[in-house]
C-alpha cells in the first residue's frame, strides 16, 4: 500500500465522506427533527444521543477524526483544481465546482457550529437542550448562516454520493450515472427539507 499512498488516501477520502460522515449527518438531522414534535421530544432524543455509552470514543472515531481527515485532504483537493466553468459550462463541471465551494462553506459552518454547541457544552458553559438552539437561531443572521451551512453540507453529501458511486466503479455507464444524478437530486431535496424544517422550528417555533 505504501507505494500507492495517494491512491489510498483519495479512496479513503471518498469512503469516509459517505461512511461515517454522510451517515452521521443524516442521523444528526433526523434526531434534530424531533424538535418539530416539541421541546420535550427534542430534549429526550438529544439526551439519548448524548448519553450513549462511550460517547466520547464514538464521537472521536465516528465523527471528529473522519471529518478532520476529509476536511484537510478536501482543502488540498480544492487548492489543486483550476476551475474552468466559464469556458466549459457543462452541468457536471458546475457540480464539480459547487462540490468544492460547498465543501469550504461546510467546513467553515461545521467549525463554527461545533465551537458554539459541542465545545461550549463540553466546557460546561451551556446545556444541551432545545433552548440552546432556540437562542442561537432566533437571531436572523445566525438563522440564515445555519440555512446556508446545512444546505451546503447536504449538497456536498448528495453530490458526493454521486461521485462516490463513480469512484468506487459502481455506476459506469452513462445511463446509470444519469439515473444516479436523479436519485441524488431526490436525496438533496429530502435531506435539505429535514434540516431546514428543524431550523425553522427552532427559529420561529412553527
Amino acid at each position: 500500500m505504501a507505494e500507492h499512498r495517494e491512491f489510498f488516501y483519495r479512496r479513503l477520502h471518498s469512503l469516509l465522506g459517505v461512511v461515517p460522515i454522510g451517515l452521521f449527518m443524516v442521523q444528526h438531522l433526523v434526531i434534530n427533527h424531533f424538535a418539530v414534535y416539541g421541546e420535550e421530544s427534542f430534549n429526550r432524543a438529544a439526551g439519548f444521543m448524548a448519553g450513549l455509552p462511550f460517547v466520547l470514543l464514538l464521537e472521536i472515531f465516528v465523527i471528529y477524526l473522519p471529518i478532520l481527515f476529509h476536511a484537510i485532504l478536501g482543502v488540498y483537493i480544492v487548492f489543486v483544481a483550476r476551475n474552468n466553468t466559464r469556458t466549459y459550462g457543462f452541468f457536471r463541471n458546475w457540480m464539480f465546482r459547487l462540490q468544492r465551494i460547498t465543501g469550504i462553506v461546510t467546513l467553515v459552518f461545521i467549525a463554527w457550529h461545533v465551537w458554539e454547541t459541542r465545545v461550549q457544552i463540553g466546557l460546561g458553559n451551556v446545556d444541551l437542550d432545545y433552548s440552546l438552539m432556540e437562542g442561537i437561531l432566533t437571531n436572523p443572521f445566525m438563522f440564515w448562516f445555519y440555512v446556508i451551512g446545512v444546505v451546503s453540507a447536504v449538497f456536498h453529501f448528495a453530490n458526493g454520493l454521486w461521485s462516490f458511486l463513480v469512484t468506487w466503479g459502481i455506476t459506469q455507464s452513462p445511463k446509470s450515472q444519469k439515473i444516479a444524478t436523479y436519485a441524488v437530486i431526490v436525496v438533496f431535496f429530502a435531506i435539505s427539507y429535514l434540516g431546514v424544517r428543524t431550523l425553522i422550528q427552532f427559529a420561529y417555533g412553527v
Partner: protein
Amino acid sequence: MAEQSTVTFIITRQDGPDSAPYEETFEIPYRKNMNVISGLMEIRQNPVNAKGEKSTPVMWDMNCLEEVCGACSMVINGTARQSCAALVDQLEQPIRLEPMSTFPVIRDLIVDRERMFDALKQVKAWIPIDGTHDLGPGPRMPEKKRQWAYELSKCMTCGVCLEACPNVNDKSNFIGPAAISQARLFNAHPTGEMNQSDRLNGLMEDGGIDGCGNSQNCVQVCPKGIPLTTSIAAMNRATNIQAFKNFFGSDNAH
C-alpha cells in the same frame, strides 16, 4: 449574398519557451471553405499584421489535416479543438487562437505534449509480445468487445481532454483522462489482459486515476467521441479490485 472580404485572427504568440506571450492581430483575405490552418498558411505566406507591420510567420503544429493525428490542437475562441477541423465559416469573428494552456509552449501555437506520452508509459499502454521464441497467435477477441474497444483506440493523444480537465494543471500531477482510457483499451485486449495488473498498478501510482474529480469535461470535448468517463469509472472499479488483491490477496501476478 454579401461576402466578407477579410478574416481577422487574434493570435497569442510566444517567441520561445521562456519568453513572455503577446497578442498579435492579422487580417487575411477571405476565401470560401477556409479552415483555421489555411488561415495560418495565409499568414505564413505574407506575415504582415493588421497594423501593416512586417511580422514573423506564426508557428503551429500539424500533420494529417483530417482530425486523426491530434497534432494541430489549439484553443480556438476559448475552446480546445483541432485547428484543421475548425472551419472559418462556422467561427465567430475575430477568431482568437491560443496555445493549449495545460502544456508548455515551444513557440506560438506549438506545445510540448510529452506529459501525455509519459502518462502512457506510466500505465504501460502497449502489449508486450516480444519473446525469445515464436509465441504463436494470441487468443481471439470477442466481436462485441472489439466494437467498444475500437472506439477507445481512436484516441490521438491530441490533449484536448487534458486542456478541458480542471484537475490537469501545474498544481496537480494528475495524468489526465486519455491515458486512463488507454489502460482500459489495452486491458480489454486478450493478450494485453495478461499484463493488466501492471497497467492498473500504473494507474494507482501518484498522479494516477485518483486525481479524477468527475467534472466530466473530457467526455464532452473529446473530438473523437471516446467514452472517457465510462473508461474512468471502469478503471476505478478495476483499480479498487486490484488494490484489494494487492493487499489481501496472495496472487500478485494477475
